[in-house]
């Protein structure tokens, strides 16, 4: 697949003796939604952190848009168009929802010439741009509210809005559905499809199998840091090894 936006080749991330991710490879095409699944501790978030630049890979390669991205710091990956959310939400609690989004709109101002970083962000046009993104995720009516007091559902949307503000080509969603009500899940499912339809590739970690299987074009299953299976959701959910990996641990896979 030469058109792959993200290509993970033999990726390993070790912490001391612990092989959190061990020799994992997969590809993600442009405009594709790929689900990264697996039981707790399978290495999904570590994989995310390696792709988004938080940990340098122990070995293996991460190719983004055909370029080697190993060791690029998180802010460098953001510049390249990789947006992400966090499993444990990381909002800027002291700032309003709009300001949270504006932070991510500043991309070009945070690097390069000093005078650019000294421009003002308090401009009507910038606020409008942020509001447009908040409208997309359905938070426009709460733009002025401090995110510190928001419930988890809104925080997950703030995180998606921030990631969108980077104008990403690749969006990494780390359990963006967890802790949400059914109606919120439906809303965000629609949102993710909409984002994909605008040409953004989406890599998502999801615990809720129903959501993951419905949303993903393809899935990759990890277990104990290794790749267990890869394929269409329907193929993978009937794969005996996958069923074993889930049921063997007390069944978070019952929904599959």
């Amino acid at each position, binding site marked *: 697949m030469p058109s792959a936006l993200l290509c993970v080749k033999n990726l390993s991330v070790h912490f001391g003796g612990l092989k959190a991710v061990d020799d994992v490879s997969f590809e993600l095409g442009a405009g594709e939604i790929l689900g990264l699944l697996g039981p707790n501790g399978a290495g999904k978030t570590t994989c995310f952190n390696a792709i*988004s630049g*938080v940990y340098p890979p122990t070995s293996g390669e991460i190719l983004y848009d055909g370029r080697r991205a190993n060791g690029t*710091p*998180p*802010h460098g*990956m*953001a*510049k390249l168009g990789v*947006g*992400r959310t*966090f499993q444990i939400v*990381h*909002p*800027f*609690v*002291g*700032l309003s929802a709009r*300001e949270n989004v*504006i*932070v*991510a709109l*500043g*991309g070009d*101002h*945070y*690097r390069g010439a000093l005078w*650019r*970083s*000294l*421009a*003002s*962000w*308090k401009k009507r046009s910038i606020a409008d741009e942020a509001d447009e993104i908040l409208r997309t995720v359905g938070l426009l009516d709460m733009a002025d509210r401090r995110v510190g007091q928001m419930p988890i559902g809104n925080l997950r949307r703030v995180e998606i809005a*921030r990631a969108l*503000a*980077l104008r990403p080509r690749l969006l990494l969603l780390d359990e963006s559905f967890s802790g949400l009500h059914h109606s919120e899940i439906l809303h965000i499912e629609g949102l993710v499809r909409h984002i994909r339809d605008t040409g953004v590739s989406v890599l998502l970690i999801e615990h809720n199998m129903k959501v993951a299987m419905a949303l993903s074009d393809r899935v990759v299953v990890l277990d104990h840091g290794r790749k267990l299976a890869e394929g269409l959701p329907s193929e993978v959910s009937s794969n005996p090894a996958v069923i074993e990996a889930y049921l063997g641990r007390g069944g978070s896979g019952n929904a599959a």
Partner: protein
Amino acid sequence: MDYFATVATIIVIQAIAACGLNVIVGYAGQISLGHAAFFGIGAYASAMLTTKAGLTFWQALPISLLISMSLGFLLGLPSLRVREDFLAITTIGINFIVEAVFVYTPFFGGALGLGGIPRVAVFGSRLGNSQFLALCAVFLAITLMICRQFTRTWMGLACFAVRENETAASSMGISPVRAKLSAFVLGTGMAGLSGALYAHYARFISAGDFGFPISISMLSMVVLGGMGTLAGPLLGALIIGVLPEVFRSLMDYRMFLYSMLLLLMIRFQPGGLLGEQSAAAGLLKGILNRRRASSA
């Protein structure tokens, strides 16, 4: 009048340094316990340039600022690259080392300090006490304006983001080191300005004026007033500056009272007097709103 001017001038000078520390601690969330070192660097730079190189205060000022900001950059860079807990410790170290350099280097006057620092002159006439106070007040106003302006720049916003959550900030395209360093350099520049003014106010300086306890007292101002607020450091400098005058009879217990005040403040009101969720700020807001309502 002279007594008032003397006390008021030192409060204004310290408020400038406290504003600088607030940029580092309040805006960027980086705890610095060595602010007095940069206060001292500004003071020694201006003192040396005016007494030994024969420059005027106005010629020396930009150079002094440049020196304190460059040293802030050089000393901040290794400290800010490591974990946040480390910055507190490395800045303590910087404070002790800088103080030791002033004491042990004959070039800087050694233990005897530097004397004979000229008064500031404007258009050839030397400023009297109250005129110098006015000059310091102007510098304080400029400092406040810069602080306010900084919060409106992208770099200021980047600092807020880093303060709130460094991991998230970096995934939004912000280089945390760059954001912290810019706050650190701006803050040390303000400390340098404050130090330069102090040198020409005291007209005799020695290393002890810039020791670690001074850093603590500056931090107390910021914490007391409210970290990250514009007026907080001002209020803090006012309180810390006025207290010893009020408690003159309790001189022996002064440090004890200070430390207990700081402890109670941070224990029960970590946001400071003007911070959020503060009783005092709530009261003040209430009064202001009522005023506004009644005048409308």
